[in-house]
């Protein structure tokens, strides 16, 4: 069993790779997407709504099958890891966009007006005024989502990406001890998520101490 523990622990790399890539994709590309939701054009807003609801509404497993097998039927043959990153990444974009949308609701209209009155450019308004307040408004929710993503990455085991759950499954196949091995895998997830949770709490407490919402 000791060997099994080692092998499972070694699979952490793949889990992290999947999580970090998907999270980055979501955090970065969710931002332009949420601009659609704020657009004046009803068509763009409609596109946003459809995208977000369909992407979020369909179970990730189904998207994974579409990315891995469905695209292959169209001649686009992606490796397993790429399919998994693509799937989780697109879901992350939709999710992060929704998180941003909530955060923007926390920012008062007066903040935009002050920026306009000062002739701040769009970029400066976004970067210097809105983003810092948005960051404060969404950082705990984002951390929570990344913790969830960490575990959602286990989905990739279906198509044989050797991340924690896949390797654990293999070891259970050959050794039994399902409960112990899965518990061990769970502890790895816990060990990965707790630092993230702590960092996000500390950041939030610091920001809250630094300035209060007016």
């Amino acid at each position, binding site marked *: 069993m000791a060997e099994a523990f080692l092998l499972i622990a070694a699979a952490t790399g793949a889990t992290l790779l999947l999580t970090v890539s998907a999270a980055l994709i979501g955090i970065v590309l969710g931002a332009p997407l949420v601009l659609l939701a704020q657009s004046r054009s009803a068509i763009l807003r409609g596109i946003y709504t459809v995208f977000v609801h369909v992407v979020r509404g369909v179970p990730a497993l189904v998207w994974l099958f579409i990315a891995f097998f469905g695209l292959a039927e169209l001649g686009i043959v992606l490796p397993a890891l790429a399919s998994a990153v693509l799937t989780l990444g697109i879901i992350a974009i939709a999710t992060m966009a929704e998180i941003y949308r909530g955060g923007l609701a926390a920012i008062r209209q*007066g903040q935009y007006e002050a920026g*306009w*009155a*000062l002739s*701040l450019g769009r970029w400066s308004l976004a970067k210097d005024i809105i983003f810092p307040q948005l960051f404060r408004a969404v950082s705990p929710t984002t951390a929570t989502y990344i913790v969830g993503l960490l575990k959602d990455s286990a989905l990739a085991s279906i198509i044989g990406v050797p991340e924690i759950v896949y390797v654990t499954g293999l070891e259970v196949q050959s050794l039994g001890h399902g409960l112990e091995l899965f518990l061990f895998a769970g502890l790895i997830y816990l060990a990965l998520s707790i630092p993230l949770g702590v960092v996000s709490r500390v950041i939030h407490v610091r920001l809250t101490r*630094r*300035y*209060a919402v007016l």
Partner: protein
Amino acid sequence: MEHSSGHSFVQAEHLVKRFGEHRAIDDVSLSIAKGEVISLIGPSGAGKSTLLRLLNVLETPDSGTLRVGDAAMTFDGTPVKRARVLAIRRHTGMVFQSFNLFPHLSAVQNVALAQMRVLGRSKDEARTRALAQLERVGLAAKADAYPSQCSGGQQQRIGIARALAMDPDLMLFDEPTSGLDPEVGAEILAVMRELAADGTTMVMATHEMEFARHVSHWTCVMVEGAVIERGAPAQVFDAPEHERTRRFLSAVLGR
């Protein structure tokens, strides 16, 4: 004002702004020469804040025309041209009734930010100027405090310093002294006189008649979205033409 002679710096004609059914601004025309100080007085809800907000197009008029300096716009319900709006705002500074400070920035950062981003001043220069403006409004000691750590009057002065630091040609003050004690009020009065001496055009909404009388060249009385009376402060305050103005002003004296 019609009274002002020569070339006007701000020219607003037939501005109308509705909120639903309610006509918050009802066919207001204004003409202000460069360097003039105009005070807007009138009862609560008369439309003073709304008028100021129309002058830098934070609120889009439903109809009318507006020119500030070289930038002119006509409003007819179609989407406004961004470039024109920016040109107007570029000359214009505003002090909000509700301050609208940036809560995540300290006082000095609040004042320095737009200088760096818009005027392209260096970080050091912006900070130096920001401190100078804070000093000017008597707030040097609070430079590194966040807005939430400042008293009401202190927040108001940060807002004033922030607008001043941009060296605007046109300043819009929405009740700049409402939360200020007389002492600080007097300081702000002095600052405004300096500005006027430097040729800054100013429009301010105020409830303090004494303040309006001391600082402004012309006074407009607004009631229910319309300017019902305008003239030199001495004339408006001492010999109001309009019955409504008389009634409004009687409260000041009667208090």
